[in-house]
């Protein structure tokens, strides 16, 4: 838009020589273009500022939210049962030291700090770590534990006798999110000074002064790297590394660098240096363990050294710092020498910066790397048991609660039992495969071990590779249980009018159920034995006798008892149920047998004791849940019969058969599944052996699962059943069920509710009871 002339003087000056019309047009257009450009620039700048502010706002929101979120997003920690120490406990000095090693205690002469132990003649001295249990806090303390033989003799704190001391429980897992990031969150006061100062010395010298980035840092790194010829130092500040770690990406673009830089500056403006350093220490990626990403120094210390961070000596702090630069390149398990060289350079930096003395430097340089034997031997990790914990907690806690709320979950797992069970599974399967020349790795197995009285799960093995988070056969594999079901028929019989001495028919039979196919079961050996007492039929696991007994009692009655004992109705509504054509998981079978092993109480297997929040406030307690399902006398009687199964029947090959243990073997059709359910006074174990492809294994319950149980029992030590002997325990002949004595017949002693109904074996000198004489007279 042309403007009017500015003044009269200019007009008079210009009136003498009129400007050419063409030039005036050009000038006007030029001015107009100039003004337009100026306006566009202003608008663009304005929009730019607006968009830029918006972007900065977005970056601010994004980084602040991530920072705050990560700061408080703490996966739940899951603990095993702590080992209780008290005078008289069956425990050897060696077993205690094993447990201490499992908990990451180190053997040392210097017990000034927690986490160390020192063997002494007849015992061990140790400095316990402090721990907040679900019912109390135990401060760190020094104790001496003395042993006599295989028993703990006494515990001393100074010269005081202690009645009871707990070790800390092992951390057995955590509920990390699906993206796999696991971490243990530390507060600033839990961060060792050497780690904080060491990180700055190695990674970011200007950390305390810079505002998120450091030009001198970049220059120094470039110089160092130029001199050494390798990338020894990076130019990124700790803040930049933290931001980079939050948004894991390997994209190397200017745009990403600028974004990181902006976010770093924002973090520095928003949060204190202490907050940023602590976040870094909790966040930085330190390694990968299967699906689990190890983040932060707290978890890193557990993963690599099986110790709390505050117990690491300078050499191990330096080793952890050395990993930051490249958790794969400086993987201490795969590249120990490379990591050791870098650790030593870092120790030199510690010395040069005056962070450690000459003497400590000398000592540290001489130390080996000191990582645990293998990635999985450190902080215990039991994925199969964790499945059970997860399932139990899912009723009450959301997955998000478990991943972010820092819950502390106390469980029933006993690491020693778990290690025994896992080892028994792995070793026995390997041995069977070698003996039978099977393809290595073709067999699988799973076990559940519970406390007989409380139903608490002490160990759970989901497959032969315990540390691998794979298919959990103990919980999810439902296979036909075979003869393991038979005690249920016998229970139903004992609850009716039957005695152990009652005769059943072990003879060929064909059953045609309504709406069903004709069914002709057979005994395992193909033979029939005619009339046999129930005890012999159970001990030898005679199929035809079991079907006969089941038919007499009635399928409905037996299945009704099944439902009482496990809480659900069986799937198979045909008589083949009597022979265990009913798929069950080892965990479900543990529930069924829990009724027997506990002496008549249903105790659903459980794994969680209590859940506490991050501050230690109890959120829920999961107490024992017992419900009487079987009369005490009947349960005692059934268990006596199951002891005979071990002494005389299919369990007799076990080295513990004569030592007061009860159990039952099971084999499914074509030897596809080999089962054993066994218990003593304190432990109930269910063992399954089979193949994942469900092909025949050639194994019976005796030649497969029982062998694993034998190995487990060997390691744990059997605890003979101490059920009170019934007043009605009577010797009966094993083959006939007639009342007899050991002098005149092959007898078994079992509770008989109505002794007057027993028929005596002739020639044994047993007087006929009055009731029997009456029955003889009246022909009943």
């Amino acid at each position, binding site marked *: 838009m042309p403007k009017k002339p500015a003044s009269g003087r200019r007009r008079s000056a210009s009136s003498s020589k009129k400007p050419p019309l063409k030039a005036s047009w050009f000038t006007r257009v030029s001015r107009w273009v100039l003004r337009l450009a100026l306006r566009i620039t202003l608008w663009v700048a304005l929009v730019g500022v607006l968009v830029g502010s918006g972007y900065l706002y977005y970056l601010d929101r994004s980084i602040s939210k991530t920072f705050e979120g990560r700061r408080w997003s703490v996966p739940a920690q899951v603990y095993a*049962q702590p080992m209780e120490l*008290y005078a008289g*406990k069956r425990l050897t000095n060696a077993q205690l030291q094993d447990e201490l090693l499992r908990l990451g205690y180190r053997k040392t002469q210097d017990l000034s700090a927690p986490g160390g132990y020192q063997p002494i003649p007849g015992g061990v001295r140790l400095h316990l770590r402090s721990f907040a249990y679900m019912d109390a806090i135990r401060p760190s303390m020094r104790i001496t534990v003395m042993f006599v033989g295989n028993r703990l003799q006494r515990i001393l704190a100074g010269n005081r006798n202690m*009645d*009871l001391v707990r070790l800390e429980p092992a951390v057995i897992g955590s509920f990390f999110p699906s993206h796999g990031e696991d971490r243990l969150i530390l507060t600033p006061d839990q961060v060792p000074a050497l780690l904080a100062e060491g990180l700055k010395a190695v990674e970011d010298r200007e950390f305390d002064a810079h505002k998120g980035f450091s030009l001198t840092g970049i220059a120094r790194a470039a110089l160092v790297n130029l001199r050494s010829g390798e990338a020894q130092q990076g130019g990124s500040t700790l803040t930049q590394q933290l931001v980079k770690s939050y948004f894991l990406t390997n994209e190397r673009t200017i745009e990403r660098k600028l974004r990181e830089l902006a976010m770093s500056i924002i973090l520095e403006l928003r949060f204190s240096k202490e907050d940023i350093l602590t976040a870094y220490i909790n966040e930085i990626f330190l390694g990968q363990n299967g699906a689990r990403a190890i983040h932060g120094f707290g978890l890193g210390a557990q993963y690599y050294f099986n110790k709390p961070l505050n117990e690491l000596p300078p050499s191990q702090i330096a080793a952890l710092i050395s990993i930051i630069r490249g958790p794969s390149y400086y993987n201490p398990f795969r590249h120990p020498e490379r990591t050791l060289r870098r650790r030593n350079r870092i120790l030199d930096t510690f010395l040069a910066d005056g962070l450690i003395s000459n003497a400590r430097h000398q000592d540290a340089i001489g130390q080996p790397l000191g990582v645990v034997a293998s990635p999985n031997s450190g902080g215990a990790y039991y994925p199969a048991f964790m499945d059970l914990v997860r399932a139990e907690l899912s009723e009450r806690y959301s997955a998000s609660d478990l991943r972010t709320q820092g819950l502390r979950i106390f469980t029933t797992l006993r690491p020693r039992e778990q290690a025994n069970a896992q080892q028994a599974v792995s070793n026995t399967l390997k041995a069977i495969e070698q003996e039978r020349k099977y393809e290595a790795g073709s067999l699988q197995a799973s076990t559940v071990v519970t406390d007989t*009285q409380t139903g608490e799960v002490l160990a759970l093995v989901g497959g032969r590779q315990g540390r691998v988070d794979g298919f959990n056969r103990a919980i999810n594999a439902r296979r036909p249980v075979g003869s393991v079901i038979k005690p249920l028929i016998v229970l139903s019989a004992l609850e009716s009018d039957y005695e152990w001495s009652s005769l059943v028919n072990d003879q060929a039979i064909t059953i045609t159920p309504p709406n069903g196919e004709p069914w002709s079961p057979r005994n395992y050996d193909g033979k029939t034995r005619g009339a046999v007492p129930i005890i012999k039929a159970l001990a030898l696991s005679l199929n035809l006798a079991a079907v006969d007994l089941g038919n007499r009692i009635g399928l409905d009655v037996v299945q009704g008892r099944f439902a009482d004992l496990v809480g659900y109705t069986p799937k198979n509504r045909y008589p083949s149920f009597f022979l265990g054509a009913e798929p069950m998981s080892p965990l479900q079978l543990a529930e069924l047998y829990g009724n027997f092993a506990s002496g008549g109480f249903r105790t659903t297997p459980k794994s969680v004791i209590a859940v506490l929040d991050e501050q230690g406030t109890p959120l829920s307690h*999961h*107490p024992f849940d017992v419900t009487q399902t079987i009369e005490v006398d009947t349960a005692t009687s059934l268990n006596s019969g199951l002891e005979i199964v071990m002494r005389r029947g299919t369990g007799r090959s076990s080295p513990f058969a004569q030592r007061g243990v009860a159990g039952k073997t099971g084999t499914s059709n074509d030897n596809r599944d080999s089962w054993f359910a066994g218990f003593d*006074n304190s432990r109930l174990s269910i063992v399954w052996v089979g193949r994942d492809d469900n092909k025949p294994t050639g194994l019976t319950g005796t030649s497969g699962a029982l062998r694993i149980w034998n190995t487990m029992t060997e390691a744990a030590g059997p605890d003979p059943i101490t059920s009170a002997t019934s007043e009605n325990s009577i010797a009966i002949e094993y083959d006939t069920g007639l009342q007899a004595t050991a002098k005149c017949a092959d007898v078994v002693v079992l509770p008989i509710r109505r002794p007057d109904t027993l028929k005596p074996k002739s020639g044994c000198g047993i007087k006929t009871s009055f009731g029997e004489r009456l029955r003889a007279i009246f022909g009943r």
Partner: protein
Amino acid sequence: MISLVQSASSPALVRTRNLLANLAVVFLITGCASTTVQTPQPGASTPDRSSSSQSGRELPEVRENEARPKAPTIAPPRNSGAQTLLARADTALAAEQPATAVLLLERAVRIEPREALLWIRLSQAHLDQGDSRAAFQHARKAIALAGSQTNKRTAAWLQLANVYQAQGKDGEAKQIRNRYGRSSG
């Protein structure tokens, strides 16, 4: 699953009745225990400190050697660990902290699972929490485990009587007390 936080809604009457009933059993059993249980020596006490700062569940000091009525001797748990925990659970019960008592007693049961005395106390602790179903089942368990140990069996049956009474089944309670009250002398 139960909450550790005690329900404040239980009627005062039931509480009082439970308390009286339980005190009777406490007297009966702890009285017995005091004649045979070796109580922790002063200064030899437990290393675990109540986490009062965290949960507000501070345990009062254990007072031993107070005069108690004479009652038949009940053998204590076999090992010192369970004994110690039982003594602490008794203190918690006396201080009306049944939730703490349950934790301590379950810990003791993990050490000595077949000790009827511990299950009797667990029944009592559940009853104090107002959970009569659990109290009933734990008493049944105690009876089963007591087996032929006469005094423990008596104590277990009397605990079951307490449960019946709390459930308003006075007839059943009376029947048990008639049978076992006398024999407990």
